[in-house]
């Protein structure tokens, strides 16, 4: 055998050894079941197709406990230490409550290498950003035109006699309600701690319905039951994909345009599969998975690479979402820990008949 032949054998052996090492380092979850608390309505299926499948490729199994973050928090509290799931997908109010209740475990951030594509504010040792949605209003432009109503720009525009009985508003149980209320407060000179203007405004708007699921509000628009609803741009993308004649507007709050509402992933205290939980979170924020969730479900990726890919190639998302980082600075971000603790009681009083 000549020198080239020997060199070829050595190189092949080297490659085989490297592949073997890589395989040895590849985590396996044989016999493990990871339980993930997340949204229903098809979201769980998208998460499974894009993220859960990565656990299953490695011998594990993922089961989903579906419900709103509040429902899932209630399940967690009621379980009294015997957690019914390992990973929870949360809005920022649920995250705050889960932290106050000491219900979340630490995340070993060295196990989350994909965090390199996230903004530093999008992760800590108890939470990792999952996605962002941008709250606004979805409306029927034709109906507005027929009635001589200008397109809405801020939530107070919904307080219009011509819109009486035609407004649908997010219910307290919907995760974005707090953000909408803070926007209303900020727009009238208040803030998270001074929410009275928002309570007065929501009473004045006197919505015909309060929705708990975005899909319900989209159906109400499709049926002509209402002409406008508070929804986020992900809902707008879904409605436009269905061919509904709707338009979306990012709500203004004072000099801010648009509202950023983050979603978080956390690991539940007492999980027996922390490695699988961290692997799942890392897979969740991987660029391809993030892009997939954005395209399939209309949420804005927290992964910058995925956001760039969507901005470059997805017309629907470009139409509905604010994707440029410099514009995010002009959007409203809610300081959840400062929000009036009595807000839910105040809203109940304002909306009750």
């Amino acid at each position, binding site marked *: 055998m000549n020198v080239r032949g020997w060199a070829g054998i050595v190189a092949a052996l080297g490659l085989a050894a490297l592949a073997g090492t890589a395989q040895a380092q590849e985590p396996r979850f044989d016999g493990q079941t990871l339980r993930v608390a997340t949204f229903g309505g098809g979201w769980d299926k998208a998460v499974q197709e894009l993220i859960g499948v990565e656990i299953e490729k490695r011998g594990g199994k993922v089961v989903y406990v579906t419900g709103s973050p509040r429902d899932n928090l209630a399940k967690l509290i009621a379980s009294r230490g015997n957690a019914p799931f390992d990973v929870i997908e949360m809005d920022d109010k649920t995250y705050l409550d889960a932290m*106050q209740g000491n219900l979340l475990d630490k995340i070993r951030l060295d196990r989350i290498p994909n965090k390199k594509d996230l903004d530093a504010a999008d992760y800590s040792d108890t939470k990792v950003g999952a996605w962002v949605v941008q709250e606004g209003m979805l409306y029927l432009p034709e109906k507005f035109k027929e009635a001589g109503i200008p397109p809405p720009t801020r939530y107070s525009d919904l307080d219009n006699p011509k819109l009486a009985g035609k407004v649908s508003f997010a219910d307290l*149980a919907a995760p974005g309600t707090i953000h909408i209320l803070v926007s209303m407060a900020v727009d009238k000179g208040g803030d998270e701690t001074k929410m009275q203007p928002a309570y007065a405004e929501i009473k004045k708007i006197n919505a015909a319905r309060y929705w708990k699921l975005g899909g319900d509000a989209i159906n109400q628009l499709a049926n002509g039951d209402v002409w406008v609803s508070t929804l986020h741009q992900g809902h707008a993308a879904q409605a436009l994909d269905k061919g509904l004649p709707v338009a979306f507007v990012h709500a203004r709050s004072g000099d801010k345009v648009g509202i950023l509402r983050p979603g978080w992933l956390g690991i539940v205290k007492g999980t027996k599969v922390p490695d699988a939980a961290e692997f799942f979170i890392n897979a969740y924020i991987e660029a391809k998975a993030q892009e997939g969730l954005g395209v399939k479900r209309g949420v804005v990726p927290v992964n910058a690479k995925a956001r760039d890919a969507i901005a470059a190639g997805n017309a629907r998302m470009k139409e509905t979402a604010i994707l440029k980082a410099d514009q995010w600075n002009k959007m409203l971000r809610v300081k959840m820990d400062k929000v009036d603790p009595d807000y839910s009681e105040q809203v109940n009083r304002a909306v009750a008949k």
Partner: protein
Amino acid sequence: MTLPWPRFLLPPLVLSLALLVGSMYVFLKGSFHADLGVGRLGEAFTLANYRKLFADSFYLNSLWLTVQLSAVTTLLTIVVGVPVAYVLARMRSRWGPVLLAVIVAASFVTIVIKVLGLNIIFAANGGLNRLLLELGMIAQPLTIAGKVEGVAIGLLYFTLAFIVILLYSVMLTIPRSLEEAAQNLGASRWRMHWRVILPLALPGIIASGLIGFNLCMGAFTSAALIGAGKILTLPVLIQRTVIFDTKYGMGATLAVVLLVTGLAVNLLSILLVSRLNAARGMTA
């Protein structure tokens, strides 16, 4: 040999009491402790939750709304259900059992599906509203969402099948011969119903009414789905307090007040009927 019939009542009585007392004990205990947030309760015994509830018109209005809605719906259910049950019980046609089977089947349909059906019927672009608008009978589409009347319709839909089935069995116990005797003695059909059927059916109607009232008092789905976040009956408020606010103490207090109110209405009704019966016995 006579069988000791009362003893047969003992096992279901014990089981029912154990289930009621067991679950209510948790609520009752929780209602006497302050909420510390995220489902945690204070150690100290306190009446603060009850003081807050009874001093706040918001909670009292919610309780009053729940009682009113339940009472009105029960009355409507009885008004609609009594004639239906009577006709079914007296029907000689082979369609009688078929119609009864349809009603029994309707009682199996989950309330979520029933409410969804109502929402489709009353959709602004739905067939009913389009027809009424085209006929010029209405200027604006009819809607039930977010309206007290809508919730009452939902509750009626929820309870009607149960009540008709109960009333049907009551009507079957009234001998047909009594009606014939009354008519042979010259009573008009209206008088026969008023003086013979109704008095005999009254205990059964009241019992069915109480069951309907209790179903309405605890009904969550109709109020939540048709009420569209605006009709805050006590069960809706309990769900919000427990699930959304994670205030288990206050949620328990609301649940206890709902149960006690329901029990009080039931006891008062039974007392009233007993007195009525006693008075009627004395007159006779």
